[in-house]
């Protein structure tokens, strides 16, 4: 909980600087990119790794993602959403493009090939483990979030993967997010309590 609090606190502190940093990034300030990279690269790298399950490819994709962030920075519109969401989408699209390019066999072959291939890829299992609030969720909630958020599956793909109706799957996601929200709000409350005490 403390660790979570710290991470969250860190993100809160950094959030204030984000708008200015993003403006600087849009003005081609390399230092701003460097700081935003420091803040978000870990989260993005984690998503990429969990999707592609190959460290070398993941590192290339991470670099590629932030290169796009640098080049297309002016296209980011803060009124439409958070910077992190924007970067997340860029990374996810890049990974999906690579997976689609390299996995035509998987699409046509039966499911066992997919699992077989998954096993064949050597990656430290630690990279695939989840941390924080999500680990406290019920298994099906956790899986729902993991599939759409960390594995890059669409809702349609994910409900098939979980073998539940789409509507059920959507409610899994909604429930999971509700629990996460409560967990983070508790952390936030704790953090505010600490801040007040100080």
């Amino acid at each position: 909980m403390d660790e979570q609090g710290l991470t969250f606190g860190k993100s809160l502190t950094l959030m204030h600087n984000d708008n200015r940093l993003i403006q600087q990034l849009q003005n081609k300030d390399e230092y701003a990119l460097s700081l935003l990279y420091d803040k978000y690269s870990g989260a993005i790298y984690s998503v990429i790794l969990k999707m592609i399950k190959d460290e070398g490819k993941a590192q290339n994709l991470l670099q590629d993602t932030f290169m796009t962030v640098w080049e297309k920075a002016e296209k980011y519109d803060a009124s439409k959403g958070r910077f992190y969401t924007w970067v997340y989408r860029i990374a996810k699209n890049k990974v999906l493009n690579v997976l689609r390019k390299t996995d035509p066999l998987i699409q046509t072959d039966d499911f066992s090939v997919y699992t077989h291939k998954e096993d064949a890829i050597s990656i430290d299992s630690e990279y695939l483990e989840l941390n924080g609030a999500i680990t406290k969720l019920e298994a099906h909630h956790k899986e729902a979030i993991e599939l759409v958020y960390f594995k890059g599956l669409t809702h349609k793909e994910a409900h098939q993967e979980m073998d539940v109706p789409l509507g059920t799957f959507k409610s899994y996601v909604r429930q999971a997010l509700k629990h996460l929200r409560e967990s983070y709000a508790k952390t936030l409350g704790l953090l505010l309590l600490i801040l007040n005490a100080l």
Partner: protein
Amino acid sequence: MDKKMILDNGLLEQYLLGELNATECEQIEQALASDAELKSHFDQLEEDFESLGLENAITPPASVKSQLLDQIKSASNSPKVVALQQNKRSKFYLGVAASIAALLLVGSFWMYNQLNSVQEQLQTVETNNSELNSTIENLNKELESNKTLYAAIVHPDTEQYILKGNTQMPDGKVVSYVNHNTKSVVINTERLPKLDDEHDYQMWADVEGEMINMGVISKDTNLMAMSYIDHAESLNITIEPAGGNDHPTVERLVTNVYLD
């Protein structure tokens, strides 16, 4: 697209996760822009997904960042690189031009110095040359005079008279060569004792009791021609004040010889 439909269908989540197509995205964005409550819900969703991401962060190797920054530098500098290269090229040409100018300057200076030194050398050579010329001239004169003197001495008609020093000049002597045909007198003064700067030896011819000047004897040479005096009975040498005298100082007669 109404709010309930969006929420019930989990469209915000799908929008956030980038699963929707462009048209759907636009619809969601419109709905978000017009509905503050929906927007706040979406903000919450974004925040939670971000927290989820940050909680699960895996620090990538530092090499990724350094490569990224390198890539950005080389990419963003590429138009500048051209400019830089042009700049470098023009700098190169400027450098070449400056080098040439510097070389020319140094070269000019060197040549100017060379010219000066050559001029100096030329002057020295000219001086040396004129010195040599005058030396040659002198030598020629000397040679001529020596030839003349030699010719006079070795002439078959030349008579030799020795003027022996008297008591005033016991160790000195002068050898004289007299030729009555060619009317020349040459004397060898090798054995004349040296005189101080205020005195000179002067030679006189005695013609019927009168002493006639034959000339002052030079201190610089051992062999010299004197004036031939007709009908001279004797040759006499006196010591006189420097530069010679009109009349001989008889008291200071150092030597004489009678001519036959």
